[in-house]
């Protein structure tokens, strides 16, 4: 996280607590429909479930976002864009994977174009099971993620920095080339 601006006044521990408190209450999610789970995003955004109650709003660009929703299966071509988007996001950042497909491939277990496990390529903080997850499940995941952030357990972005070599090695097994 960001360095403490006033180390003499605020203890480092308190500073981290403040940061967590702030980032859990204002999760900005990136507007990226990677799969069919995106279909349940409009209901979550709109009047019935209204995720803006918790300060979660869609953002147009990865630079501004804290939360990446991988909504469903990930095709190899999408994975490259997901990694791009993820790396453009500013720390701290969190990933929620939707549905059964990013867990183990789900119904596409034998497909030639679907990567089966997402956490081999980017760290995932929260999984929602089901095909497709109901809006209630999505809201529940948001609340759980907030709790995790509060307790300091949602540290996927730290893992990504720490094990960057391994993540990149796995990614490069899927991509032929990184440019373009």
């Amino acid at each position, binding site marked *: 996280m960001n360095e403490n601006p006033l180390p003499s006044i605020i203890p480092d521990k308190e500073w981290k607590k403040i940061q967590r408190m702030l980032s859990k209450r204002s999760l900005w999610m990136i507007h990226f429909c990677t799969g069919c789970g995106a279909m349940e995003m409009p209901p979550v955004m709109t009047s019935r479930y209204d995720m803006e109650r918790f300060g979660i709003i869609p953002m147009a660009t990865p630079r501004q976002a804290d939360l990446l929703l991988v909504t469903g299966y990930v095709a*190899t*071509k999408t994975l*490259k864009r997901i990694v791009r988007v993820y790396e453009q996001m500013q720390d701290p950042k969190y990933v929620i994977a939707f549905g059964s497909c990013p867990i183990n*491939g789900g119904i596409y*277990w*034998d*497909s*030639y*174009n*679907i*990567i*089966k*496990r997402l*956490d*081999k390529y980017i*760290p995932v903080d929260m999984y929602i099971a089901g095909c497709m997850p109901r809006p209630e499940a999505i809201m529940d995941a948001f609340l759980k993620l907030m709790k995790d952030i509060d307790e300091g357990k949602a540290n996927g972005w730290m*893992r990504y920095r720490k*094990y960057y070599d*391994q*993540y990149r090695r*796995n990614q490069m*097994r*899927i*991509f*032929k*080339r990184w440019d373009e």
Partner: protein
Amino acid sequence: MKAEQIFKELGLEFEKLKVKGNTLPRYKAEVKPEKLEEAIIKFKSNGFNHFVALSCIDWIKDEKFELVYHLFSYKEKEDVFLSIFLPRKEPKYKTLRHLFPQIETYEREIHEMFGVEFEGNDRLGEFILEDWDDMPPMRKDFDTVAYAKKKYESVPLIDEGGEKE
């Protein structure tokens, strides 16, 4: 003009497909590859101006690819399927994108998924897949399970020391 009459004029034999649910008749005919363009032009000028789809079928036992050009006429309310057979080894055909522009897209997909070459179509190449490293995936002898195992399951988990699943 009714499809049956056009078939007669072209000298083609046709069969009627079974239809349940929908009601309009569907006719299917086999055309020689070199006669196809002429046949499609004939149909197009006689009201069959809606190009529905171009499908490719891999008849691996017969060592053939079947390309099915599907036309529909809003006027006559009839469906026509014109199919050609190409050899499975070095499948090659000419592009018909000048007749209906969307044929170009279908040709690009079939080129990628089956490996059929369409001469004259300059947009063939990477379309849906990216960084593909095997035979075209829709061919019958492509084993998707083996490929998925080889490519995705062999990727190791992230070793975070200590915590093992």
